[in-house]
């Protein structure tokens, strides 16, 4: 017996924006995801790879490039947003960037992520920085608003200057297996985004099973999502490595089928520099180097940046660092 090694060749990868495709249930229905195996792989991923010294510094700097520096709190104010944007413009203290020898690269975070009513403050604060403003929308975080209002919220945020829209999906559509409803909803949202990129938040903590996560990922991509994102940060369980592994494999399968490269954004619960490295290892191992660039990978985090900055200060000075000596986000 022989193995038929001539698989249908994966579609040639391109850098076009994902146009989406017709809903195709065959791409995810019956797709097996074994939780125990995903957990084992996630656990060994972080022990199989290690970066030290200059390499560690570089990987942490790269994480900064990929951070969507986020504030999504009820007590957000214009001032709070301005402070966050200042940090996004200058994520590391000057003595650190100089010590690392990267002062010339104009390091910023990947984006700033805020509520729709804060977009205008962020846009103003980031003017000339080239840092895009991302806005959550669609009744974030639960998403249980009438669809026309959610679409209107997207249009509002885009009009305010948001270049990226982090939408939330209706979890009910996943839990009830109503894939056409989910597809239509995301496709309508994509339409409402216009030129702004759409990041689809799956709220994986609510979806619970990894099969649900895989299916929801695939439907969101078929409906035209530019990024798929794990969590709002408000679910009981936010970004985890096993969930991320499953979503990344889904976007790999979508790439194989269509040639379109989808971005991935884990969000919520990631606080440490070690987390930043672990998620990058995941991307590098499963998808390769390209998925370490901000146009295909973002880390949705707020406090993570502070820990990265402390680690990098230690790299520069050789002394362990104190947060109180570094600028707040």
């Amino acid at each position, binding site marked *: *017996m022989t193995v038929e090694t001539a698989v249908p060749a994966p579609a040639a990868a391109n850098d076009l924006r994902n146009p989406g495709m017709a809903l195709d249930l065959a791409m995810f229905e019956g797709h097996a995801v074994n939780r125990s195996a995903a957990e084992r792989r996630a656990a060994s991923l972080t022990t199989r790879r290690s970066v030290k010294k200059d390499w560690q510094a570089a990987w942490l700097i790269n994480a900064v490039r990929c951070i969507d520096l986020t504030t999504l709190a009820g007590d957000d104010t214009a001032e709070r947003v301005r402070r966050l944007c200042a940090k996004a413009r200058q994520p590391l203290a000057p003595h650190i960037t100089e010590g690392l020898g990267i002062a010339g690269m104009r390091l910023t975070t990947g984006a700033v992520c805020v509520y729709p009513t804060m977009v205008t403050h962020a846009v103003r604060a980031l003017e000339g920085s080239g840092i895009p403003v991302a806005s959550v929308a669609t009744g974030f975080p639960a998403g249980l608003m009438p669809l026309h209002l959610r679409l209107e919220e997207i249009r509002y945020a885009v009009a305010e200057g948001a270049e990226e829209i982090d939408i939330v999906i209706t979890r009910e559509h996943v839990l009830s297996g109503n894939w056409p409803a989910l597809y239509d909803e995301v496709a309508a949202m994509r339409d409402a985004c216009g030129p702004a990129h759409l990041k689809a938040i799956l709220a994986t903590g609510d979806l619970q099973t990894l099969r649900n996560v895989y299916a929801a990922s695939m439907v969101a991509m078929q409906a035209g999502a530019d990024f798929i994102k794990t969590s709002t940060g408000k679910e009981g369980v936010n970004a985890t490595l096993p969930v991320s592994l499953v979503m990344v494999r889904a976007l790999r399968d979508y790439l194989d089928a269509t040639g379109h490269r989808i971005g991935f954004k884990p969000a919520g619960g990631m606080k440490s520099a070690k987390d930043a490295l672990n998620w990058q290892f995941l991307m590098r191992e499963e998808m390769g180097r390209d998925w370490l660039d901000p146009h295909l990978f973002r880390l949705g985090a707020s406090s993570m940046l502070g820990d990265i900055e402390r680690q990098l200060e230690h790299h520069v000075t050789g002394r362990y660092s104190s947060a109180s000596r570094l600028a707040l986000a």
Partner: protein
Amino acid sequence: MNKIMEVLDNMEYGPAPEDSAIVRDWLACHEAGFGHFIDGGFTKPSDPFEVTNPATGKVIARVSQGAATDVDAAVKAARAAQPKWAALSGHDRARHLYALARHIQQHARFLAVLETIDNGKPIRESRDIDIPLVIRHFYHHAGWAEIMADEFPGATPHGVCGQVIPWNFPLLMLAWKVAPALAAGNSVVLKPAEYTPLTALALAEIAREAGLPKGVLNIVTGDGETGALITGHDGIDKVAFTGSTEVGRLIRRQIAGSGKALTLELGGKSPFIVFADADLDAAVEGVVDSIWFNQGQVCCAGSRILVAESVAARFTELLSRRMETLITGDPLEKSTDIGAIVHPVQLARIRSLVERGRAEGAQIHQGSAPSGCFYPPTFVTEVEPASTLATEEVFGPVVTLTPFRTPEDAVALANNTRYGLAGSVWSENINLAIDIAAKIKAGVIWINSANLFDAGAGFGGYRESGFGREGGREGMSAYLRHPAPRAKKPETAPPAPVATPVEGMAASAIDRTAKLYIGGKQARPDSGYSYAVAGAKGPVGLAGLGNRKDIRNAVEAAHKATGWGVQTGHNRAQVLYYLAENLSARAEEFTGRLKSFGHSGSAAKTEVEISIRRIFWYAAQADKFDGAVHQTKSAHVTLAMNEPLGVMGIACPNAYPLLGFVSLVLPAIAMGNRVVALPSQTHPLAATDLYQVIDTSDVPGGVVNIVTGERDPLAKTLAEHDDVDALWYFGTAAGAAMAEAASAGNLKQTWCEDGAARDWTTAQGQGRQFLTRATQVKNIWVPHGE
């Protein structure tokens, strides 16, 4: 551009070396060479050989080649220390093992780094897998020492254990051997592999530090000759070996008839079955954890991937991509996936086997590896069941990939091997997965996982992968002896059968011809000869003079009775109760038969009565000899299932022509085995009378086959038969030695005892021990979670 800017561009991992300074210092301290560890101290180095770091080729130590005098000294020390060690309370032994576990834990990184330098395995594995499992094993067995008296009442240690271990998991294999041996109260003489002796010597230092009594653990280094000196030593009571099937066979022959207990953990060519409904990414990662773990130098590695045709193309694509991302190289690098092959000799073997495969037409797909003692991850397509790479154990990172059509096809391919160590089954369908797990002939099955180990589960093989288990309750019992009765007067060889007409045969109403009983039918012996059966007052009848062809036919018939082993215990019990009922109905006739052999009336009556009770006892056990669910990892169900051995040969003692036969055949068939029985050579007619009872009791044809004749030549044919899975021999010492030696061909399990040792009329004649001997444990790992 500075380094950081450069890395920001290429995003490479860069060097992340494990610091080995402390281990290098330790090796420098021992530059003069290592002696053996005997009686609590190190001997002066003598007759040294070099130990190298395979990753660099550099000599890292000189170690002594153990000679006969060293082995003598070690065995003497172990003998002297053992009684006192065994006399300690379980609690006191537990404290020692607990201390040892603690001290190993405190030296964990030292041992991990040393293991990596000595063996070439990646530091990730020695640090995260080998050493943690070693520690777990000692803790687990500290527990067994504590509760041994309660959990194994009446059991005693064997005495001195001679243990020989391989180079693939040097310290872990030591732990698997030493921890249960010491817990049970044995003392140990252990030889580590000559390629990788250093962690064993380090452990000796740790044992000394932890205060283990002198002489309880002795380490003698050396090559295979030293190993043979240990296993063959008269002062050794129990031999445990892990290594190649070839050497296992040599040891089986070497110690045949010595009375030494033996467990063997040998080679494998384990199947890795991927069904169409599996999580293919998970299965691909399973391959990484399986054959691309420890450079593929893993006896239980899934080295034959069998994949459903419908997903073979996608699976191959994913496997190929994953292979590309594996990093082969410096084992001390934290980002290394595949380290160095243990020794250039092993590398040459891997290369030559792969080249043979290529010459046979196999397609070789490989990742990359640096020059030196490294071999790239490899998978091979277009192999046939007969291909070199599909049959030979490569012991390298080389796996074959073969498509299958149906579950039945998968099982047939999976079992098409002389080995039976492990198997991996990938399917999201629990019905299918468990069904396949039950059908694979192997001692360990991992469902949707691979290479999971835990001290609480048994590990060990079927078929030519050896016998005995390590880990769990079943592993612990391998280091315990159940008090075995001794014969006051050993059984002597019965007189040779007289196959010519005799004088003075007692007349009966209608002449009855006792035949052989094969496949549920009475069969004339192939030879065409009969021999006279002696009674108290001259010959009482004729029995068929069976020969090797009758054995062949009987074994074939036994194999055809496939339904018996998969029936419910309840169904088998019903059949056995019916057998007892029918024997009871003919009790008088059997009593008469026994009397004709010279039994007194009461002795004959007692033998028949006890036979009936014994059948009842085993009928009762047929649905009660349960397995276990081991406590291993969280979110894992680890089943330990008692499975029948398969086709068993049973040579019955001469005495107790009815009860001896019943006592041995019944436990075997109650557990689902099929049996080729050689009844009492001198008085076979009680057994041949029984076939009529068997016939009328709904025992399916082929489950019990009876071949009368000269016991030892027939037993030898059974021992040599490659399609017989186990042999029980109850007869003479010479016969036992013959049976053990002849069983080495397919490494069948044997149970040999003096035929006169047991008083079959007492409790000695039945018990759980018989059931344990009639079964083998299959451990099935089922991880769960959705």
